[in-house]
């Protein structure tokens, strides 16, 4: 199997509430993997467990051969898993360019001495970071906003800036938490285009989404969570015909 | 044995005063998640205003019974502090309710500097003695002694705290306060006038602070424009120790801090072989504060919150 992310037997409880029960799934290299489920199904909890925000009670999460559970968020990112947030979390008082440059932090090394003396290594690193950041902004259609503060960008631009920041960290897996939330149909189409391009570039994507249509049309495979339990996993075709899924989730929306 | 009992009594009396001030911090924090840095200065204002009234009355009508004079002092100090609390909330905090977290904290520091310096301009830099208007009786219990003032402080503090609990548990205002503390948004949707609730919180907290200020100055026999700073800091530590946002916690934290200080100052010499003396009394509050925040940030009675939800 060509698995990039392997989740095996993950459980997590908050007090008496079992948020995740024995979840196992695999995300394969090069695919767009969807994680769906009704509100409160545990999608975001699982997401936060991947990215080191929550510690899990049982089970294991691996990216390639690196174990992710028990790691701090910045170590998870270092290992190659970058994320975006459901309610966009940019560095509001920094420019778009600076936001992307922060994304380079994990892949650069210069320290205080290098920064103060502008040593050749630091200068080279900084120039490289800026070049990559500009290229990413350009690719996201944000080139003309490079020097505007993040908080003054439009909603759609902020979403794309957050993706640009995540891409700057050179992830092997990009995890997006409801990227289409709050977008109009036009922006949604643009997003879809973008994600397919990223996939074509060889990136693996993990997508939490509410918008079933988007997920079904986009994802290579998907998993469905309900009440903290994985009730189905497979291609959109297979999943959408699964009676358990229809009962739990699609039943009230697809009809 | 008698030293132990003596420290216990001193600690409880001091602690009950801390508890009253801590309640003001904890109520405001519970509702606004704001450290009302100026709360200590309101306590100081309570002490200063009541001392001014008491001093004037003691001069004008020397024959008046001490309790009556004290009552008059309180009767003026409490409304003044309530008005002050209301004013501070309105001018310095309300406009910043949606600003970044550091902004209201910085204005709070500004307000407490303003109050301190106003007090200094009005009453000067010297210590103001508390006039000897109260009965000076002392009672012996098992080799320890307790004064009338100490008894009065304890009884009054307990009465006030019980009243406060009743208000919060049983009245409409109390219910509105609890709802607002849970969620400001939901409370306002349910028809609670959130601004009024917040203002009431400041008013009640300030009234408690006024009483506490009078108690402190009666206990130590003096008042000073700078007294609010350390008192406020200790009371805040007490609120954190008990679990900030939790009324019972503030009371427990206040009493505990009073006891820690009193026993700490009494025994630190023996514990360190004379290396550190009782003038380190003021250090304990900060050590307690730091230890609590590092090891159990939610305090003794606070719910253990998930670190980043």
């Amino acid at each position: 199997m060509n698995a990039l992310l392997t989740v095996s037997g993950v459980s997590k409880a908050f007090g008496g509430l079992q948020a995740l029960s024995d979840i196992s799934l695999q995300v394969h290299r090069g695919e767009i993997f969807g994680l769906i489920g009704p509100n409160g199904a545990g999608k975001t909890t699982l997401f936060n467990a991947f990215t080191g925000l929550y510690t899990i009670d049982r089970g294991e999460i691996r990216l390639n051969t690196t174990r992710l559970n028990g790691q701090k968020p910045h170590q998870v990112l270092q290992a190659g898993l970058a994320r975006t947030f459901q309610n966009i979390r940019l560095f509001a008082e920094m420019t778009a360019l600076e936001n992307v440059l922060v994304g380079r932090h994990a892949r650069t090394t210069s320290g205080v001495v290098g920064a103060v003396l502008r040593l050749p290594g630091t200068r080279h690193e900084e120039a490289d970071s800026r070049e990559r950041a500009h290229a990413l902004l350009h690719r996201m259609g944000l080139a003309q906003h490079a020097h505007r503060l993040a908080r003054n960008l439009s909603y759609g631009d902020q979403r794309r800036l957050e993706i640009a920041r995540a891409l700057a960290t050179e992830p092997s897996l990009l995890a997006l938490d409801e990227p289409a939330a709050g977008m109009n149909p036009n922006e949604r189409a643009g997003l879809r285009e973008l994600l397919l391009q990223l996939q074509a570039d060889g990136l693996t994507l993990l997508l939490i989404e509410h918008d079933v249509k988007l997920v079904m049309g986009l994802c290579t495979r998907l998993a469905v969570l309900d009440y903290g339990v994985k009730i189905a996993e497979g291609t959109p075709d297979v999943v959408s015909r699964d009676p358990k899924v229809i009962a739990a989730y699609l039943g009230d929306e697809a009809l | 044995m008698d030293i132990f009992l003596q420290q216990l009594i001193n600690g409880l009396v001091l602690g009950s005063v801390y508890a009253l001030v801590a309640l003001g911090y904890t109520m405001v924090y519970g509702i606004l998640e704001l450290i009302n840095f100026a709360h200590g200065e309101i306590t100081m204002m309570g002490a200063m205003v009541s001392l001014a009234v008491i001093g004037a009355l003691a001069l004008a009508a020397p024959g008046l019974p001490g309790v009556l004079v004290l009552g008059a002092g309180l009767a003026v100090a409490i409304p003044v502090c309530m008005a002050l609390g209301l004013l501070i909330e309105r001018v310095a905090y309300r406009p910043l309710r949606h600003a970044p977290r550091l902004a209201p904290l910085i204005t709070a520091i500004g307000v407490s500097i303003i109050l301190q310096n106003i007090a200094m301009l009005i009453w000067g830099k010297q210590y103001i003695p508390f006039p000897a208007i109260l009965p000076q009786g002392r009672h012996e219990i098992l080799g320890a002694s307790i004064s009338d003032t100490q008894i009065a402080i304890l009884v009054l503090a307990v009465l006030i705290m019980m009243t406060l609990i009743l208000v919060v548990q049983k009245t409409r205002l109390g219910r509105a306060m609890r709802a607002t503390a849970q969620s400001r948004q939901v409370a306002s949707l349910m028809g609670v006038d959130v601004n009024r609730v917040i203002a009431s919180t400041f008013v009640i907290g300030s009234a408690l602070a006024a009483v506490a200020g009078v108690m402190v100055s009666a206990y130590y026999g003096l008042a000073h424009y700078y007294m609010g700073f350390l008192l406020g800091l200790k009371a805040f530590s007490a609120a954190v120790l008990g679990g900030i946002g939790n009324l019972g916690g503030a009371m427990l934290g206040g009493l505990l801090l009073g006891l820690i200080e009193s026993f700490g100052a009494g025994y630190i010499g023996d514990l360190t072989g004379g290396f550190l003396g009782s003038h380190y009394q003021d250090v304990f509050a900060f050590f307690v504060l730091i230890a609590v925040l590092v090891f159990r940030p939610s305090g003794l009675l606070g719910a253990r919150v998930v670190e980043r939800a």
Partner: protein
Amino acid sequence: MSSVLKSRWFTFGLLALGLALLPFLVDAGLGRSWVRLLDLALLYVMLALGLNIVVGYAGLLDLGYVAFYALGAYVYAWLASPHFGLHLPFWAILPLGAALAGLFGVLLGAPTLRLRGDYLAIVTLGFGEIIRIFMNNLNAPVNLTNGPQGINLIDPVRLGSFSLSQPHELFGYTFTGVHLTYYLFLLLTLAVIFISMRLEDSRIGRAWVAIREDETAAAATGINTRNLKLLAFAMGATFGGLAGGLFASFQGFISPESFNLMESIMILCMIVLGGMGHIPGVIFGALLLTLLPEALRYTGDWQRNLFGQIYVDPADLRMLLFGMALVAVMLYRPAGMFPSTRRRREFADAKG
């Protein structure tokens, strides 16, 4: 292009000339005591820039900053005064004091890392008070600090027989101690400004601001928030320790009185008033708040002229005005009186 470059060098030269001549102009125009004040102002610029790294960049509200200033000052006093009979040279003590302060910055910072902004403020305030209480009481059983009396007769900065406390003839001019001190302080202040500017526009500086803006997002973007916060504490404390050593040598005398909470708050005021995280703003704030109290003395004369007597001691007005300024700035100009050009441009953008 080259004319732009030329005009830049020209401005630079003019600025350097102005800074070099400043103490003489001030001496001639306002008197010797103002030169002394100028020295002190430079010291505060260093302190404010140090605290700016912690508060302005990393967003950690540190109310105990003065503790590091005190540490630097006491280290200098211990190693260069009759107190222990040691008289080490300043070039050895200053870096040592700064490094020790930096180390303490890490030690005091470490337990507070998990705390949110307002809790952090109170805890650092507690640290500052603890250190002050120890300074006041560590005269027994071993006399470390000499208690409230403080330590006296601290050596001035001296290189060989060249002491900054005496006037010197150079190029036919007489340079007094305060003049020479000015140049030393100016040099170090410029170094601190330079380091601040370079850090701000670097990988490290961006990571600090990212933590200030959103700590969770910063961690998820690969920033080791713990290490970077500690680094901010350490850098800030180092500058504080440096300024403390200079202060001790400059005054020749230190006592706990100079390192109280109000001092921390005053340094914070400088940053807030000038513009948090913005170097020119912070410098402006530091100069303003050091020089303003001196100017406030004139209110005494106004009062006498207007009312025939002095009602309010001008020195007492100082803190009151600071308090009001803190509130007013937060309410009306939250970015400070001198916000960064980037922010101003953004405000202009929003209007146009």
